[in-house]
């Protein structure tokens, strides 16, 4: 018999309706931040949305009302009506700070471990499978990072590059894993909340990765991507240490 452990019962506990509405708001705002939904884009009709999210009409309407309140979407009546994305969500400095305070260093290191595993598989397959037009596209996406003018823009460009690298590897599952991992940390990576990350070396690393893919050098590309992730994880840990454990001589236990 399989006995559910406390860990499992924690995962599978039933969701209160309010959490489900919040989860929808989170999904949609994150998707807009990552550029998966664009400003001007129309969301699917309400009936389709509630079916896809697996929630009742009331929960969905609650979520949409919250998104309207935040000014992220707008609902228009009439024949060409519907719910449209009208603006980029505001950067959530508070929630980013909260993430740093509530996520332990062992958890940040573990996120990096998973990113490294997924990225290593993606880069190996990209070397085998990417073709010339993928390479061109990746170069363009890599340059977009250094051209971005705001932390949100850098987060968007950075995550887009990594997701499209997975796309060039021809694996929908790995692309989905990469999307999930990017959603989890890319805002935190580029926030200037403690010390801002410099986009120039990151862009140079992305371009070097694309060159290794273009030249089908999986060993080199693999090392580059692991080094890239390690640097990002160090940056997250440094930010965590600065926000959570400022050095002083009075805070010994």
């Amino acid at each position, binding site marked *: *018999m399989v006995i559910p452990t*406390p*860990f499992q019962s924690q995962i599978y506990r039933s969701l209160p309706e309010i959490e489900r509405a919040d989860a929808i708001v989170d999904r949609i705002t994150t998707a807009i931040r990552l550029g998966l939904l664009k400003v001007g884009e129309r969301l699917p009709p309400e009936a389709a949305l509630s079916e896809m999210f697996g929630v009742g009409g009331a929960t969905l309407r609650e979520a949409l009302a919250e998104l309207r309140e935040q000014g992220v979407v707008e609902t228009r009546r009439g024949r060409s009506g519907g719910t449209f994305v009208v603006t980029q969500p505001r950067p959530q400095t508070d929630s980013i700070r909260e993430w740093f305070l509530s996520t332990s*260093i*062992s958890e940040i290191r573990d996120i990096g471990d998973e990113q490294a595993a997924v990225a290593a598989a993606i880069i190996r397959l990209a070397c085998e499978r990417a073709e010339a037009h993928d390479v061109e596209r990746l170069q363009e996406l890599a340059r977009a990072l250094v051209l971005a003018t705001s932390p949100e823009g850098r987060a968007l460009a950075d995550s887009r590059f990594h997701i499209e690298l997975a796309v060039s590897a021809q694996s929908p599952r790995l692309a989905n894993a990469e999307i999930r991992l990017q959603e989890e940390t890319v805002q935190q990576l580029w926030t200037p909340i403690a010390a801002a990350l410099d986009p120039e070396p990151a862009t140079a690393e992305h371009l070097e990765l694309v060159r290794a893919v273009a030249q089908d050098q999986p060993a080199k590309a693999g090392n580059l991507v692991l080094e890239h992730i390690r640097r990002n994880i160090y940056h997250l840990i440094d930010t965590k*240490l600065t926000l959570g*454990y400022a050095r002083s001589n009075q*805070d010994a236990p």
Partner: protein
Amino acid sequence: MNPDREVVQAAHALTLWFRGVSVEINHLSRNVASLLESSLAGRSTVNKGALVGLEELAHEFLTRNASAIGAGMFFATDSIDEGGRPREWWTREPDGALKRLDFDSTPGSRRYYDYEKLPFFSAAASTGEQTLWGPYVDYLGFEDYILTVSAPFWVRGRFMGVVGCDIRLRDLEPLIMPTLRLIHDNAALINASNRVILGNSGMYLVGERVRSESAHQHRLALDVPHLGLSLIYTTTT
């Protein structure tokens, strides 16, 4: 070279903290042994009735030690009766309530928790001393990333099992990081197998093993009996 004042100060604070845990675990071990001694009344194996009172001891432990997420005892297989429970373990729920943790103890089943083979049990059993195991992913047990401090207990000279407590790495971090941050060089608390428990920068990451012994890397053993803890730090000069 002599360690800096800040290193000595940090080592001292860490030593005191872990000695505190160590004393508490010894205390639990003695309490469990004396309770069993009277409840067994000369029998050598534990039946269900003999378990009465253990819950109270574990609850008392968890109430006194807020940093522990779980505590209890595991019995050696040959010290339990047919129908007796091989382990008594309680964990702290997110709301603070204490709850009994169920393990699968059917050998051969998919989620069988073979605790007698796990170091927190086997090391305490074979050395007869307290031991610290972790950081480790406690798959099929508490299923989190934890440290376990455990100690054996005996009744009338016979080894009966181990008592112990779990500390989550995420709970330990805010307790000892301020101490590690007193040190301005890269520094880390490591266990007996050179695994990082917590470091004060990205150089030493929790769970990684410290391999290189460079001339700039120094080690200071913490004076906490049997736990195998050391503080390492790197100097640039």
